[in-house]
């Protein structure tokens, strides 16, 4: 629970002076994402604490090192939550790491991604300047949206110090239903309910069963269940949590794990291995030893991109290569924030 911004700033100035790149790290629960950095660690985990939480304003501001579990607990007390349902991938996950990786859970297609809930942030840029963008209000169009640019930038543009996020009320009730269908049918059913005003808050297919989570008032859920059919799952909450945290049996295989991000209704295409469809079709987990380039080429052809979440071969980049036309603008943005290439060089892409 302390403010380390000055210390962190001094470390950045020092790194800059010695032209010594650093790896920004909280509690390293996301170490598997991105290329590994060989450089010294710049530890942000002690820069923690909830700074401001105003339930009726739907805003929470916390330091980057604050544990997600602490934030969740604090929100729980006021019947509120993080709508993007972030996975922690470990008990010690921090807000900073979650935002830097833009990680969102099963609710993402229906509620929005981490980036959709970031209202503002305070950062240290590569020149060691402490800068504030956005704020604590829902609507704010003053200046470029640097807060969202930081989200998912994997720490390559700056150190996140404090982050303001929009929080939402918890739904009064949730229930999970499931139905046995094959994956082609599952995609069709997901698409059908996407087009109707239904209280769906998650949809996945585990290979055998299609699962929907419904969120809302009791009467609304009852009426939705009548329309949608299927059987009620008793331990629904537990099911979605295991999926979110990759603790579901599907993930328990010692092979490369891929995340395919696709237009939701993309038909299944020919990939070796097992697939788990999440996000109503827009996110598909693939356990496969297939050649990385081949997976990426097929996914790209279908309008998507493939990231490698669990690798066996350290030569393969985590993230899908950028289209050629997009690389220069990424490099120039990196330059704009971190001219001496101090922060996480190569973590996101070897060329950035």
């Amino acid at each position, binding site marked *: 629970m302390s403010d380390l911004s000055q210390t962190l700033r001094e470390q950045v100035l020092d790194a800059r002076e010695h032209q010594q790149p650093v790896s920004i790290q909280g509690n390293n629960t996301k170490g598997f994402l991105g290329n590994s950095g060989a450089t010294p660690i710049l530890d942000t985990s002690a820069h923690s604490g909830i700074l401001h939480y105003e*339930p009726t304003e739907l805003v929470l501001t916390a330091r980057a090192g604050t544990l997600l579990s602490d934030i969740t607990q604090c929100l729980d007390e006021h019947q509120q939550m993080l709508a993007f349902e972030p996975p922690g991938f470990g008990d010690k996950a921090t807000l900073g790491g979650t935002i830097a990786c833009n990680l969102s859970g099963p609710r993402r297609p229906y509620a929005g991604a981490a980036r959709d809930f970031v209202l503002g942030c305070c950062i240290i840029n590569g020149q060691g300047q402490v800068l504030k963008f956005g704020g604590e209000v829902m609507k704010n169009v003053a200046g470029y949206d640097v807060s969202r640019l930081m989200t998912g930038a994997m720490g390559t543009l700056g150190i996140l110090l404090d982050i303001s996020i929009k929080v939402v*009320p918890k739904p009064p009730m949730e229930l999970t239903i499931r139905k046995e269908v094959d994956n082609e049918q599952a995609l069709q059913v997901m698409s059908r309910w996407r087009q109707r005003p239904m209280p769906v808050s998650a949809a996945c297919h585990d290979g055998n069963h299609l699962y929907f989570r419904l969120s809302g008032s009791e009467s609304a859920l009852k009426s939705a269940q009548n329309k949608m059919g299927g059987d009620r799952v008793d331990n629904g909450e537990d099911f979605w949590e295991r999926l979110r945290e990759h603790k579901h049996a599907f993930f328990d295989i010692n092979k490369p794990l891929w995340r395919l991000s696709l237009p939701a209704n993309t038909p299944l295409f020919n990939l070796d291995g097992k697939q788990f469809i999440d996000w109503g079709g827009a996110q598909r987990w693939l356990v496969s030893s297939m050649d990385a380039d081949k997976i990426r080429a097929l996914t790209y052809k279908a309008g998507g991109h493939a990231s490698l979440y669990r690798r066996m071969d350290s030569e393969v980049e985590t993230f899908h290569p950028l289209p050629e036309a997009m690389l220069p603008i990424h490099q120039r943005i990196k330059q704009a924030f971190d001219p001496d290439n101090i922060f996480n060089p190569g973590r996101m892409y070897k060329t950035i």
Partner: protein
Amino acid sequence: MQKSIDKNKLILLLTPILDSDALLHEEEDLRPYECDGLSAYRRLPLLVTLPINIEQVQAIVRLCHEHRIPVIARGAGTGLSGGALPREDAVLISLARLNKILDIDRDQCLATVQPGVRNLAISEAVAAYGLYYAPDPSSQIACSIGGNVAENSGGVHCLKYGLTVHNISQIRMVTIEGDLLTIGSHGLDSPGYDLLALMTGSEGMLGIIVEITVKLLPIPERAQVILAAFDDVERAGHAVGRIIADGIIPAGLEMMDNPAIRAAEDFVHAGYPVDAAAILLCELDGTNEEVSEQIMHVNKLMKDCGAVQIKTASDEAQRQQLWKGRKAAFPAVGRIAPDYYCMDGTIPRKQLPWVLKSIANLSQEYGLAVANVFHAGDGNLHPLILYDANKSGELEKTEEFGGKILELCIEAGGTITGEHGVGMEKINQMCIQFKDDELQQFHAVKYAFDPHNLLNPGKAVPTLHRCAEFGAMHVHKGQLPHPELERF
């Protein structure tokens, strides 16, 4: 330094690129483009171009880039901050003729459209499928989707459904070099930096948006509106907090103060109680069952919070009638004064009583009346300052008053613009909201896209010199801003 060429030479170079009626250069033809929705600011453009396809936009931009001539993109010209204000040395690119809906992907709830398509036209085109496009700025009959992306437009339904940035999936943009980039995807994310967010609300400073894929939502099963009247503004503000604390996120939650209520009622006879100090309009949408429960809940809350009158629309016609007053609030205020100036700050909602009181004090000080319309759910305040532009000095006085209101919003922990953008209008207040280092970081972002500063130059982000000049007139808390700059 700029490699300038004269206007006639430029016309010669542009002629083969464009259709004969798509290049305007005579003063009488340029005149309609001299301002956008902020008509107090006017300037003639060097030339106006009206491309009909992406290739033409690329060709115009390439040519301007080669000769270092600034370019300014313009959508429907409804912006309220002077973002599309022309310059005498710049080519204006109107995207009005790029007005086709290219694709409706019902399965995925996406529509791909050209930038000149009107906001409302999208919802109209997909209504048959039971879908709609959620962001609904009050200019939605006229404003274009390209302009919405450039400004990150909001609307009445932002609290529940988000701003433009939350409701678009992909854009295609022309860079200042004339290259075409695809940003985002038809999935839920794409690799690399979130350039989609960076482009949204960038006010034409980073690229020219030539195609947009928007997300569509299913039309809710039911929508219902409740009107509650209060004899005290603070009580109305408190009621808003209570609704949210009880876990209800209304589709819309609007507040109007007495002058705004009177003006609206006189104009459209919406059935508003003209003696109320404030009214709240609370729209609830969702499934039939949920809306029924929430109406009862909100009704009770409003009573508990001291509402003196509560009215629930009994049918769709009455619902439209109650909204009509709110939607017509700006023109209604336009009827009671020769001119009005619409401000756009956002504040943490709990600061509302203090901000409104301070605005009332300023109103007395300046001798200019104010009507307040407020997106209460998300804290976005629209004070309308009433003035008469024909009275000498009154516009200047109004602008100064407006600037003070924006500063109040910053002081309250908010921002100078919630949804209208900075443009030309609020450029001085940017110097107050941001420190020099932050402004420099914005300039560095701009440089990454537009190193020669040719895209809509001079808007949205002030130079430090401008801030120093503004600061000289504006010593804050006894400290001279920007002490590092030389002063003469």
